[in-house]
């Protein structure tokens, strides 16, 4: 597998990089408390890791930040991007990118269409949008895969396209929900590197959730145990 070292950079004009702040988050599921008083800040380009066993509410925390929490949860506290309060905004107005264990590429779209779907509407003109897509593919060493069916690509290729798709949507923060856990050891290290490099190059405050110490170590950043909350 070829993975060149160039990095796709989203020349986001819409906003300057900002920090992600979580203030006194308290989450409970049907009256049962998952965590309380969770506060932390992630600077642009910083990668913070949250660790904990399964069922401790890691994924629910990410859902709370992105605004996709199920109805049976109740949340107190605030989610901020710099001073801008996101807490009461619907997910589509938060611009917080998410990556899951599975790549979740839309099976009915080609690679190009998947990437194009993520580009914000304010990027006008077919030419400009296509240019963005091919630049992203190019930088990731996937330039000949644009018209392919995602189902025909390898797991590693799909994972990278999922990252590009998220970046093209010009997020202001990035949430990673164990995105490496399904990859085999060799691929895993390289893909991890790919993700972190892009997150830093795009100056995104990034929050990684994992139960794998190896993943946590590789970020070189802060590691927080969920059990502390």
């Amino acid at each position, binding site marked *: 597998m070829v993975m060149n070292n160039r990095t796709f950079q989203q020349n986001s004009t819409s906003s300057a990089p900002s920090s992600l702040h979580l203030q006194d988050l308290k989450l409970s599921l049907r009256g049962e408390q998952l965590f309380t008083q969770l506060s932390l800040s992630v600077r642009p380009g910083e990668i913070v890791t949250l660790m904990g066993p399964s069922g401790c509410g890691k994924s629910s925390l990410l859902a709370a930040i992105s605004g996709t929490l199920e109805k*049976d949860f109740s949340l107190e506290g605030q989610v901020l991007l710099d001073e801008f309060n996101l807490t009461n905004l619907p997910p589509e107005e938060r611009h917080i990118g998410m990556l899951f264990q599975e790549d*979740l590429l839309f099976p*009915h779209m080609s690679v190009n269409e998947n990437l194009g779907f993520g580009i914000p509407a304010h990027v006008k003109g077919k030419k400009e949008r296509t240019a963005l897509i091919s630049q992203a593919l190019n930088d990731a060493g996937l330039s000949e895969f644009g018209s392919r*069916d995602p189902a025909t690509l390898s797991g590693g290729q799909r994972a990278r396209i999922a990252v590009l798709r998220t970046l093209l949507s010009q997020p202001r923060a990035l949430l990673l929900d164990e995105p490496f856990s399904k990859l085999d050891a060799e691929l895993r290290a390289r893909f991890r590197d790919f993700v972190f490099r892009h997150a830093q190059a795009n100056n995104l405050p990034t929050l990684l959730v994992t139960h794998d110490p190896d993943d946590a170590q590789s970020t070189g950043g802060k590691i927080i145990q969920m059990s502390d909350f």
Partner: protein
Amino acid sequence: MMKHFSSNLSVLFSLRTVPVLTLMVFLLPVLAGLLSTILPAFGYLPVIGQVSFSTTAWTELFAHPALPSALFASVSSGIIATFLSLILSLSFVAAWQGTNSFKKVRQLLAPILAIPHSALAIGLAFLIAPSGWITRSISPWATGWDRPPDVAIIHDEWGLSLILGLMIKETPYLLLMILAALDQSQAKQRLKLAKTLGYHPVAAWIKSVLPVIYKQIRLPIYAVLAFSLSVVDIALILGPTTPPTLSVLVLRWFNDPDLSYRTIAAAGALLQLLVVIGIIFIWWITEKIIAGLSKTWLTNGTRSLAETPVRILSKVSLNSIYTLFFGSLLVILLWSFTRRWRYPDFLPSVWSSQSWDRNIHNLMWSSSSTLTIGLISSFIAVILVVACLENEKRRGKSAGAGALWLVYFPLMIPQVSFLFGVQVLTIKAGIDASWLAMIWCHLLFVLPYVFLSLTDPYRQQDDRYIKVALSMGVSPTRAFWRIRLPMLLRPLLFALAIGFAVSVAQYLPTLFVGGGRFSTLTTEAVNLSASGNRRIIAVYALLQALLPLLCFATALALPNVIFRNRRALKGH
């Protein structure tokens, strides 16, 4: 921002009201219909001068000489047909899941479901009658019968041919429901696990899979039970005649020129409703008892369960059912091109296309109204169901969604018991014999089946696709149209086809609400079956079967064309 917010609010608000709206649309006419059946049953029918409440109708009903045997015929054939269909479909899946014959059976389910009951029954009647195709194929050379044997095969007093006709339709339906339930219960893993513990296939399936999926197929089983207990068209063609089943008897009373029979008919319709409720209740109790009794058996460690007999029996029975089905279709096709075909000729002696030629004009007209009513009503049903399910997805299981099982109501109660009331209601509203009333009435029966077939795929769809889309800044509406619906295209089209097939098969609703001004292929087919002319009946029955088949074929083929370059969405 503000504008955005308020438009979102209105979408949510309207989406939120959909379940309530859907229930209103459905329960209203059914309840109104029931009410106008209950009142006459207790003697209140002002139009024929009866305005005082009494129980005369009930006394007369129970004193009616035909009632005991009609009731017995209905109940026995309904229960036996449901029971056998269930046992057969369960044992076939248990014995053959994962094999090639299983795959073949699965592929042929859709065409069988597409064929309307009456078309199938007409073909079957000719296949198995004493003068039918099976006898002709061996007479007189092998049997010496130069005249057909004088034995009752169809319309037999035990209702056996009625049971057979019901089984041919119900077994594939239950198979489909079992398959749908399997797809979402990790059946394969359970089965593998049980097999590694040394269980043989049938025992493994019955012990490790059945207890899990049974609650998912329970509602379809009740629907089959209710249908078999109150079926009219198949009972007319195959069922006992002297006396007929209760459903036919009630319909006959409703149609009696002596209008005072109306009150008895109403009481009979209510009795039928009570019978259906009662039998479903008994079935439910039996389920509980069997579940209780089987608790120790499930864990007693026995690892095989009549494996070979079940394998052989289930395959032979299912193959016979499929053979009878395709034999019925073939024989209808032959009749439609027949001029003379007398016993004991194996094939028609004089062929002709006269039946097609003479009916072509009429066929075009009834086909187009069949298409219009069927497509519009199933389309509306799909929209309503999708709106209800989307509402459920966005808001969690709210009160409205929880009550949605009520849409099965029209399936559980006998059609005659509320159609007269529905007819009165549409006349009151000034929409009788209109397209609106027609489509509305078809919706009552189309919607439950659409709901049944769409619910599972919809609820199972991985919501993270939508979350990913939202996190990219895409609005819920856009995510719904661009991600949710395209990914569900296959089940959506399949639900549409099911709805269409259900609409095509509706006879009584078309008759009652259409004011006789709507002729669909089914009403024409039943009308012409009064002529006893098999040639013309065959033409209509074929077309009646052809339209839903085309619809199913399209529903299966279209996603393959649209997604020809999308491996993940290709059909199996």
